[in-house]
């Protein structure tokens, strides 16, 4: 790589050019602006309900309180169930999706595959033209019976043509000698795919797998369309309903809270924090894979 070499060539002890200080100041400001809404919501979730109602949202809690979290954690079943639904859909969905798309992408990457042209067309035409929402909705609810089924949250996103394209490009760039050698040794396509191609393709698989995981985890649309039973709501849909209608939040038995007014404003924000937290943490852990995968994609073209 050229970047480290470049760095070596430069003298590290020379002072930063003055313009760099201005750039850093600007970029720091922008970065803080980007993190600002997140801090605002965290602060609100740690405020007391009365201070939030009287003085509004602020960057630092005006009256620190954990009542919102306590309220939520007294009966976390609703939140935990939504987490479980989202987790199940995201893991099963992205794992299945990765396998299906990798198989498809591998076949499409083999120049000797006889029906490559036709299958490519079948896959990529869907990028250009689709039947639209209404037809899918009627098909899925009326003819496939997917209403209120978790399968409705998984099946429609299993094949994303764009990711198939990405995987195909990656597989096609693998050295064909290795595949030829395995073939001469008598390995069949399935064997070659699982024991040679997949282990060599971890960067591409990681990137596509993460994108798929994100697609499932963040999805609200399929739930909005196909679910009416609140017990099956994934996290995003639960959050949407709570923001629009606080009544949606699990009511505690009245005897327990008869004296307390539920801190609805702060509870909403605490809910958002609890829903974002793990995902944000995963993002921090995984973002370099995204960046690397995207880098490979855009440099290779």
């Amino acid at each position: 790589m050229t970047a480290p070499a470049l760095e070596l060539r430069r003298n590290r002890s020379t002072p930063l050019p003055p313009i760099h200080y201005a750039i850093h100041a600007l970029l720091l400001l922008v970065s803080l602006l980007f993190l600002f809404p997140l801090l605002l919501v965290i602060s609100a979730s740690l405020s007391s309900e009365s201070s939030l109602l009287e003085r509004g949202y602020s960057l630092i809690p005006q009256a620190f309180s954990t009542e919102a979290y306590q309220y939520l954690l007294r009966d976390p079943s609703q939140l935990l169930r939504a987490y479980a639904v989202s987790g199940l859909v995201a893991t099963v969905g992205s794992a299945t999706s990765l396998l299906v798309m990798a198989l498809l992408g591998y076949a499409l990457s083999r120049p000797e595959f006889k029906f490559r042209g036709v299958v490519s067309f079948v896959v990529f035409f869907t990028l250009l033209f689709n039947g639209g929402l209404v037809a899918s909705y009627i098909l899925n609810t009326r003819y496939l019976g997917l209403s209120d089924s978790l399968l409705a949250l998984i099946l429609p996103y299993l094949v994303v043509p764009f990711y198939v394209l990405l995987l195909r490009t990656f597989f096609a760039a693998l050295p064909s000698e290795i595949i030829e050698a395995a073939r001469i040794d008598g390995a069949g396509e399935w064997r070659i795919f699982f024991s040679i191609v997949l282990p060599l393709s971890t960067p591409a698989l990681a990137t596509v797998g993460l994108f798929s995981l994100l697609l499932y985890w963040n999805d609200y649309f399929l739930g909005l369309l196909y679910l009416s039973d609140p017990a099956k709501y994934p996290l995003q849909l639960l959050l949407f309903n709570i923001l629009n209608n606080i009544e949606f939040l699990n009511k505690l038995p009245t005897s327990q809270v008869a004296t307390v007014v539920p801190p609805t404003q702060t509870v909403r924000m605490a809910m958002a924090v609890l829903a974002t937290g793990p995902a944000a943490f995963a993002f921090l852990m995984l973002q370099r894979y995204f960046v690397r995968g995207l880098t490979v994609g855009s440099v290779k073209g």
Partner: protein
Amino acid sequence: MNQPNSPSPLPPSGPRMFQKPGASFPERSTRLSSRSRQTLALMSMTLPGVLLLLIFSYLPLSGLIIAFKNYRAADGIFGSAWAGLKNFEFLFASGAAWRITLNTLWLNGLFIITTLVISLTLALLINEVRSRSRALSGFYQTALFFPFFLSYVIISYFTYALLSTDQGLLNSVFKSLGLEPVRWYSEPSRWPLILVLVNLWKNVGFSVVIYLSGMLAIDPEYYEAAALDGASKWQQVRFITLPMLSPLITITVLLAIGRIFFADFGLFYFVTRDTSLLYPTTDVIDTYVFRALRQLGDFGMAGAAGLYQSVIGFALVMFSNWIVKRRDPDRALF
């Protein structure tokens, strides 16, 4: 066309007609059978994906006719009576078609321009300081990229905390400055700007990463030579970085233009909290179709709007792909 589509096992000899002329091998029976076994294996690998596409992407195509029907759930798609162009007449006569088309095009256009300008600027700045301040540059990238991983549902909580009329931070700031508080969720004229900012906030980091990786791929010797010749930083950006990046920029923008007829549902539905007062400036084709379908239950008109979007969208994709192909065939979608 149909035969290769159907994933049925082929006879061991394999039909020769699908083979490309140059690819035929000497007619040796062992060779042939191993080749058709290979074809069979590859076919079976595509089977799950192709089946899913047939069910979830191709079967709904037949449902497009609903735009021309007077849909009644009891009669189903094919049993319902024909309505001719009545659904379209209603859509265009109500003025809705004009409004949602204009909103979709104008807001998506704004998004494309602002995202391009801001992300390119930020990428240039980070690129400039990157080699001397690795850790800080990493922090900038993370901070900018972070919102990309949040769903619009979560983001709507953030915007609500800022914009809520009574408790929102913006109004608190306005009050402390002695300004009149604004009822954000009932003033449509403010929303194009709000939507542009929210879209930037969520998506700019992704473009920054793409452009930064493009800049990393530029050979540093160009800059060294330019610096020796006394070129200023701005001249280096103007005559090296931007020209080297222009294929990437062109493709990114053209692909976005190809999608300009399709709006980001989450942004327009959740961030506005589906407030009907805001529809004049925030209602786009995708939200309109969704509401017609799920709230009004007007399948015919939702279908008509959807077909309108599919057809114009298709034309725009073809058009932008045609331009991409002329400039850089490798980057064309097809």
